[in-house]
């Protein structure tokens, strides 16, 4: 019983994954404050561990080609336990969209408009997201190619523009931090930017590709996102050096340093606007997925009606998520990775193993 039968093509799906990962450039402050100048090594490890998550999700997708996450849970665990798993996912998706919305609100509040109350920023942003989500999966992912292209273009351009500030021996004291720090860094990056692609499990029925090729597109999108993230971190460390640990938005600081000519500097508002369009894609996708999960669980026949209700909940939830930025940073780098690990790694793994044991896969049933 498909709620939104919009169809997205394979390349759109690939670029949606890439754009989804690229959009989390704002969150790099978490693990950079932990592994100061070795963050780029940590991000490569994180990328590799992200591949493991990716393998689990593609396996799930291959076993249940036209079933989204909620249906898989019901199929594998039976209606009651499946519902519990799906409720956990509702909580996870809502918190994810609230977290990203809070990040966006803080970023816009700090970068562009210091005096506007964040509630105004959040509500006007969510109105546009609601309008896109109401349109369905096709509208949300239509511009994924456009957004990915602009982001990669911006990353490459800023890399060259910041070249005269780059000083390569900022990387130098490599591997001289305690091993625990690297473990924590890898843990953070593999769960927060890379693990979040679990949301794409909800969208498998809408993707129009032969099921054996889905793995290829998923990994390709994941690779584009991962590489651009690593490039961003490399650029930030190269430019800022040891000052990087001071800032809440390090990549935003490097963008402030870029100076086109002796007079034309201070370009950060331009980059902030581009980051907003990126966050638009990510938040509207998460918003869409949380609406889809709720309507899938309660078997509503169209997801359009609850869009505004869920939107309001997300806005209010994001305002009182953390009391202060310090608590956000402290929790974000210490405890949240473990919590995300449960949703992104443990639950899908359990579903996969149980599915394998009970030899359930919807491809056999052929519906």
């Amino acid at each position, binding site marked *: 019983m498909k709620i939104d039968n919009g169809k997205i093509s394979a390349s759109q799906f690939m670029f949606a994954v890439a754009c989804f990962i690229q959009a989390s450039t704002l969150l790099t402050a978490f693990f950079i404050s932990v592994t100061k100048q070795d963050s780029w090594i940590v991000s490569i490890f994180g990328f590799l561990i992200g591949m493991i998550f990716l393998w689990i999700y593609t396996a799930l997708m291959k076993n249940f080609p036209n079933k989204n996450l909620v249906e898989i849970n019901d199929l594998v665990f039976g209606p009651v336990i499946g519902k519990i798993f799906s409720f956990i996912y509702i909580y996870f998706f809502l918190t994810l969209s609230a977290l990203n919305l809070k990040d966006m609100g803080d970023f816009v509040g*700090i970068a*562009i*408009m*210091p*005096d*506007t*109350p964040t509630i*105004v920023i959040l*509500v*006007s942003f969510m*109105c*546009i997201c*609601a*309008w896109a989500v*109401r349109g369905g999966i096709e509208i949300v992912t239509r511009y994924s190619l456009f957004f990915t292209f602009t982001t990669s273009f911006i990353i490459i351009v800023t890399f060259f523009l910041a070249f005269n500030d780059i000083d390569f*021996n900022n990387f*130098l*004291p490599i591997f*001289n931090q305690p091993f625990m720090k690297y473990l924590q860094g890898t843990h953070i990056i593999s769960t927060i930017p890379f693990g979040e692609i679990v949301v794409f499990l909800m969208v498998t029925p809408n993707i129009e590709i032969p099921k054996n090729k889905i793995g290829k597109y998923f990994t390709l999108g994941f690779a584009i996102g991962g590489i651009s993230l690593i490039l961003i971190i490399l650029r930030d460390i190269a430019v*800022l*050096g*040891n*000052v990087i640990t*001071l800032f809440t938005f390090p990549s935003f*600081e490097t963008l*402030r*340093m870029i*100076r086109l000519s*002796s007079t034309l*500097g*201070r370009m950060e508002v331009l980059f902030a606007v581009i980051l907003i369009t990126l966050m638009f894609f990510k938040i509207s996708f998460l918003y869409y997925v949380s609406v889809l999960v709720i309507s899938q669980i309660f078997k509503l026949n169209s997801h*359009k009606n609850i869009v*505004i209700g869920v939107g309001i909940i997300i806005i209010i939830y994001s305002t009182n998520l953390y009391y202060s930025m310090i608590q956000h940073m402290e929790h974000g780098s210490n405890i949240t990775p473990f919590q995300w690990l449960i949703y992104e790694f443990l639950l899908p793994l359990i579903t996969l193993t149980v599915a394998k044991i009970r030899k359930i896969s919807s491809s056999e049933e052929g519906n």
Partner: protein
Amino acid sequence: MNKYNRRIYLIIILIINFILTGCWDNNELDTISIVTGLGIDAAENDDEIDLTLQVSKIKGTTGYEKGAVGQGSSFFVMEATDSGILSGIDKLEKQIPRSIFLHHNQVIIFGKEQAKKGIKKYMDVFIREHQMRMETWVLISDSTAKDILTATMEQEENSAIGLSKMIYSESRDYEVLSTKLIDLTSKMMEKTTSPVIPIVTVNSENGNSEAEISGLAILKEDKYIGELDLERVRGYSWIMGNCREIPFNIKTEHGYADTSISNIKLKNKPKFGADGPFISIDFKGDVSIREIQGFEDMKTNEIFAILQRSCVEQLKKEILDCFNYSKNLNADIYGFGTEFYRKYPKNFEKLREYWDEIYPELDMEIDINLEITDTGKVLNSLYMEEKTDENR
């Protein structure tokens, strides 16, 4: 009108009534005063500072009189004494009808006495405050910051913009003569290195005054302890690298030569030698001869040999002279501490506390090889012997 359209209008209503309550951040151009320079001087009692802000005066050209932008100095200076910078700015904001706009601040100047007292206390606001930018220049004024900011420049609208343009062009040759806020903060975070800030002096004759960079101030533990004059600055910049072309004149007993050294390839590697840590520097550069006086009737390759030898000696002397100066000031202005930390992080941890003892004993092993590559239009000059066949 199917229900789908009705939903769109619901969303648009939501947007409109949120947007119309907007314009918190809206400050029109004529309600802000644009700060171009910020100076910090020592006030009488210790925990207070004299804050001076150089603001550009905007005179409306439209309307009643249509003339060029007002002649003479189009800026005015505001001062306040307060314990913190931002509280000082708030005090100033009460005096003028417009809100103070710091984004276009070109330069941060510390007075000499304040530098002596220490500047780390006031650095925090430059990083934390949203309007302060990391690429503003940092300077130390010879006298007080106020003199620099109140000086009226001949060509430029106000002295801050003039200074920033001068630093920008100056740093083309001598990279070291410009420190951005970010360089200063990163050097301050490295405990062992002592940051270096250019010194600006103002000599005002007949009304208009000319500001010029007259050396580098050395700060140890963010206190001003000494300065390098322009001679030593050249010695310092040989080591710091990234300088494009530096004029260099040599006096030898045979004659005087004016050369310039360019495309310098520099490697300074910290090593742990037999008797403790030392720095090995190998320096490759091309010498281009610009002017030769004297060298009566000598052969060209003889002259080149002499010139090369004296270039090497002079270079070595300058480098060592500046290095020794910094050693007896016990201020690691080259950042060798971080070099050691970067190369040998493990065993540098132990050395870090004793760095103040180690640095004066640090010695430097320099090997310099220069080739004379360009002699301008003429291969030999009037003084040299005619180039007959046998000595070609």
